[in-house]
């Protein structure tokens, strides 16, 4: 199986969705190709590139990620439990089950699928000091620590606000929803789950001058004619070239 595909598959679906970046860009910005065979017939297409990355709260296309995965840095492998059905999304109400804030409920602010992490707003925090200097003690910043989706956090049933296990089931309309196993109540998908870097929700997107509008996009202006693309273009420009040096006649 192609190496680049394997590396890129480690990046979670939700990460790509939130970033709203082209997948090719994420793949390209992540990969660190040290050497590539030249594009000649005697070479097989081989690359020497970094295979193992350490995923953190820094997103794969950022400079901080590159710094953490610099050439030559080897980190111990982090074993991540593969989750088939991801159930916790951005904006979900969850209860923290471990740590200082055990028993408290909060809303998920970030989801890092590559490590099975979830960051809950204001919970499981610690203080860190940024911008430290010789004289200056630094600015105190409260930052959340990530929690594992599997056993450190639990979705909350909206009917009684208690933690519950959930199951993915289908409604009568055919919609796939999360259902609380204890009460049977459907846990709706939060609105923040649709959010991306570019918009809060698709319907709330503000169109910019460079965006094509729906009315213009759905118009059909194509009328089939018996012309090649070049003939069509020339017809538009009203040029009639008759004395053209045919490339095939040029002596090689």
């Amino acid at each position, binding site marked *: 199986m192609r190496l680049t595909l394997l590396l890129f598959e480690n990046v979670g679906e939700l990460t790509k969705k939130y970033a709203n970046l082209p997948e090719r860009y994420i793949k390209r910005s992540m990969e660190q190709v040290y050497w590539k065979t*030249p594009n*000649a017939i*005697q*070479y097989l297409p081989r690359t020497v590139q970094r295979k193992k990355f350490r995923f953190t709260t820094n997103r794969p296309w950022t400079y901080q990620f590159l710094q953490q995965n610099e050439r030559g840095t080897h980190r111990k492998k982090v074993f991540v439990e593969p989750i088939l059905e991801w159930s916790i999304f951005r904006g979900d109400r969850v209860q923290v089950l471990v740590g200082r804030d055990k028993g408290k409920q909060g809303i998920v602010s970030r989801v890092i699928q590559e490590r099975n992490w979830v960051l809950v707003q204001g919970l499981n925090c610690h203080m860190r000091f940024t911008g430290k200097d010789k004289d200056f003690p630094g600015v105190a910043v409260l930052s959340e620590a990530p929690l594992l989706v599997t056993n450190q956090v639990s979705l909350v049933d909206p009917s009684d606000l208690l933690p519950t296990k959930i199951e993915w089931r289908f409604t009568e309309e055919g919609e796939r929803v999360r259902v609380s196993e204890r009460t049977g109540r459907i846990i709706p998908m939060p609105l923040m789950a649709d959010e991306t870097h*570019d*918009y809060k929700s*698709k*319907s709330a*997107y503000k*169109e*910019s*001058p*460079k*965006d*094509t*509008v*729906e009315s*213009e*996009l*759905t118009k059909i202006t*194509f009328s*089939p*004619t*018996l012309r*090649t693309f*070049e*003939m069509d*273009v*020339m017809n*538009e*420009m009203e040029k009639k*070239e*008759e004395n*053209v*040096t*045919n*490339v*095939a006649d*040029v*002596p*090689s």
Partner: protein
Amino acid sequence: MVLTMYLSRLVLPLKWTRAISTSVVNNGKRNFRKFLLHNKRGSRSFKEERKKLKGNEPTDVPVYHYGVRPTGYHDAKGNFIAVPEMIPELMVPDLTDFKLKPYVSYRVPDVVQSEFTAQDLFDAVYSRKIVEDFKNNKLDSNGNPTEPSEEEALTPEEAKERARRTGSDIFEY
């Protein structure tokens, strides 16, 4: 195999034996990193040797252009003759009052269109006339029209000539 070769060397120390790569270590002889020696690459002696060859077999040491396409050709003496028609001309249409923009708004629903095949093009161009001719009995015994329109009278050679007249290079072979 390596061991036996070393032993043979010990027995006949003055004889130079030519070693053959048969052991596992030499299986990695696939490092061709230094073998693309085009243009200015290679040592001076290598390039001098190559210059001598150039007159006899020019195809052996062609100049590598890195994928840049030529805008002319070299004559028998080696002079480069520029052909203005080989320089690509960008035909950019006038974009005033053009409503389609480079990006698409996120609010737009998915537009699904079926593939426009050659069959669809044929139907669009010829089908109406064929149906009319059939109704008015203007088709002869073979099914060809008795009063062909401009498109129907077109032969394949004429059609190809029309396409080539644009000076495009899609028919280059």
